[in-house]
């Protein structure tokens, strides 16, 4: 696979490390229930098709990336800097 890093351009997948599902959100520590923490820690979907995933460009710029990938075809649909995604999510939160 080739992943277009937002900072470095298209690079081979061997430069990246995979973490997993980028749709799970760390619960708010002040209010989260035990069940929410459990889901955050252990429950993941395994979609067939488009999936948002966290990758890190470990052998490159070290940026964490949110890669939207089709799990059936490996087509990379979009790549965003994880920090930008996280910041806009924080902004959107009430």
């Amino acid at each position, binding site marked *: *696979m*080739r992943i277009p890093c937002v900072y470095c351009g*298209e690079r*081979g997948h061997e430069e990246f*490390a995979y*973490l997993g599902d980028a749709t799970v959100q*760390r*619960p708010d*520590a*002040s209010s*989260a229930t*035990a069940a929410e*923490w*459990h889901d*955050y*820690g252990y429950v993941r979907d395994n979609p067939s098709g488009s999936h948002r995933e*966290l990758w*890190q460009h*470990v052998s490159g710029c*070290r*940026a*964490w990336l949110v890669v939207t990938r089709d799990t059936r075809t*490996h*087509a*990379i649909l979009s790549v965003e*800097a*994880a*920090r930008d995604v*996280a*910041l806009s999510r*924080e902004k959107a939160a009430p």
Partner: protein
Amino acid sequence: MNDAAPNAHSAAPARRLGDNAPLRLAEGGLIDRSRTLAFTFDGQRYLGHPGDTLASALIANGVRLVGRSFKYHRPRGILSAGPEEPNALVELRSGARREPNSRATTIELYDGLVAASQNRWPSLKYDLLSINGLAGPIIGAGFYYKTFMWPAAWWEKVYEPLIRRAAGLGRAAGVPDPDTYDKANLHCDVLVVGAGPAGLMAALTAGRAGARVVLCEDDFRLGGRLLLDRREIDGRSALNWVAATEAELAAMPEVRILRRTSVVATYDHGTYAAVERVNDHVAEPPSHEPRQRLWRIVATRCVVAAGATERPLVFPGNDRPGVMLAGAVRAYVNRFAAIPGRRAVVFATNDDAARTVDDLAHCGVDVVAVVDARPQASAVMADATQRASARHISGGAVTRVHGRLGVEAVDIRAANGATARVACDLVCVSGGWSPNVHLASHLGGRPEWDATLAAFVARNLPERMDLAGAAAGDLALADAFTQGHRAGSAAAEACGFSAASAPIPLLDPESTATSPLWRVTGTRGKAFVDFQNDVTTGDLELAHREGFRSVEHMKRYTTLGMATDQGKTSNVNGLALMAELTQTSIPATGTTTFRPPYLPVAIGTLAGHHRGKEFRPTRLAPTHTWAKEQGAIFVETGLWLRAQWYPTPGEKDWLESVDREVRAVRSAVGICDVSTLGKIDVQGPGAAAFLDFLYTNTMSTLAIGRARYGLMLREDGFVMDDGTVSRLGPEHYVVTTTTANAAGVMAHMEHAQQWLRPGLDVTLASVSEQWAQLSVAGPRSRDVLRAVVDPAHDISDAAFPYLAVAEVSAMGGIPARLFRISYSGERAYEIAVPAGYGDALVRALMDAGRAHGIVPYGTETLGVLRIEKGHVAGNEISGQTTARDLGLGRMLSRKKDFIGRALAERPALVAAGRPALVGLKPVDRSLRLRAGAHLVAQGAEPTAANDQGYVTSVAHSPTLGHWIGLALLSGGATRHGERVRVWDPVRSGDTLAEVCDPVFYDPAGERLHG
């Protein structure tokens, strides 16, 4: 490469045979007759020429029998002239360079080549194991699964050795390969796979447009089928066109031609793997050159012009030496000027084979009969037959082959059923051509059946890929040129170049008409579908009778297509026969899955330079050279090579050395390189809040110029790592990690920084490589440092107490960092200087310490010191232990959120009975404890049900004078003073130990302060 005249094919008919090899034509062929190469096959010496393959040279020398088959040890000859060869597998070279299962059809001849046949015992001609042929029913389809099932214990002792001897392939060298293998990357606009007419045209078109082109050709010569067919392009020999095209491509600066290079795999997003046989065509690679090179090619566009593979016909005796593919026969007579026989029968289903009839007649081979399986007479075939003065049999079939070690005659059945025996020594067969769809199918696209072509063609191509020529099912040469041009233009244009149109060369007439024949019916005897794995029509019938209907099941049960050739000549015939048996259509039967690599690839090629010690990098500590001078014994810890201990003269074992080192630290001073610890610089206004989030304890309250022990959890609540956090300024911290977790902790921190806490203004940098850091430990440590740290810095206990940190200078102005932290429990410091000064620092400290009795110590002593103090390390921070398990529960802050806080509070992780850290002392103090031993209650049976924990770390404590251990014991914290049974079945240990506090030495921590 131009070692033969380009117009060699057009030479006048050469009916005379040459003299150095009995079946070499006197003229023609793309071989260099000015040079002679000597080679041996099974010990017999033969001669050939540059331009030959081993197969062509054997044919020229009249060698027909080249191997024995896998299961039945049937005599086998050369079937093909390319990489699809299932039969002519040899052991190439000798000694450490011996390579089994090498295809004689692709081995380029060199002087001194040594090859041997496989699978024969005692000799190729008299193979005693060919009796397997009589025992056929025992080792038919599924024999792996049923014949040898009982008794199970016999499998390893009896069946497997027997089968391995009887049915096997070549022998590996058995010793390390002396050659090297390389790996490299290539990036291009257009990758063209195959340098036949379509590939050359595609490369030429894209190259002319200005695209960066990589052209890979499996063969050592460009031209593909133009090398083996006598064709005319623009009124001249096709070889002229090949030579001109090759010259034009070679002159283009952006075009790179890789000969002897097989593209073996397609990966996602335009990535391909190719194997270049850099030096397989010489006896030994020149020094500093690899034998093979594995290319990773990344291409914006790819044109696959990989050609097509001819299918054999399925009839009894179709595996006898002398039965050859019709196209391959053309290759031998035209390209190599070697005739595979003197009296030929051609048996085919298509007009393409008419070329074989013409070419055989052209070089003086007697074509006695042309058997066309098609009931409707083909004019093209009839004309060729007439030119060759041969008998023409329409709607006929070869029903039997006579001759034991090679073809002597065949039975030909005419359309009316009458059978006649015809003497011949060569049978040219063609069942049609299958496009090479592998590279187009590696990403999962299933090829589709094309009834007109009677072949599978690739559909649902990987993005960025195009097909041209025979690989696309365009079998006519005219189409190869047209489609090659189209694909080359499209590829160049997709890369932003504009391609000009070019005239398509004018060709001689051709016909590719074909009609399939999947098997000759109404016959008796073994008819082979898969030659290499010895799978017959009978095996497929048996599998079908036994209920194997799906193509994937049938393939595995019969092993059809599972040999080293992966069924290149057998899969389509096999599928068609399966369709017939299951009374379904071929498209409904479908194909099996295409997986890389297309050709067998040696493990050495995949490993490249990553062999032995070079399997992964070795990291050396900054004091490595100095430690080596001291005679240190080194140990691999992760990638690092660290000093394990420093033996001195007269010490009889490691224990004696380590005891001495420990005593020196406890009584005087010792020095140890701790640079391997991960060091991470944390800066910014958000640094304090960031570290509060990462560590279980609070770092924002840490005073500037102070250090604190820190504990990190994973989000699931288990301990991840520990280390020290030092504050150098209001917005500047430096933290350490364990050696093993340095990379993982860095990634974890970056994840927290960018994903979990993106709003914090904090910057991270790994500085592990930038600083050499030495631990100076022991009661005299300050005295030693006083002489090395520049005098301007006050390091008295008042100015620089336990857990103080300062940026200082040392050795006369070298910037340094000084930390008063202790792993040993003694007064201790760590001093860091820029990595390049590490060697100078260790020498300066040793000089300064000589008067104080300084000794260097290694990782063993480090371990003993920390076990005596009950400090946890990797053995205890195993990923399965919580902070409470390790006695560190007090470090879990209640006042803030941190990673792992919530899930660490789960009931099971705070349950009272969890294994917790304890110390162990053997009741009989003379006995040794062993890490890994399990703990059960005193007097209890040592069973899994009674298991109460295990010993994590042990050390011989010279301080206490006996062995001590750390262990995780159920409810351990409340069991101090109890005795437990320490059971070690692996090393026959069974002792009693006393449970105690894990801190064996100086529990009050008084020695830290001096």
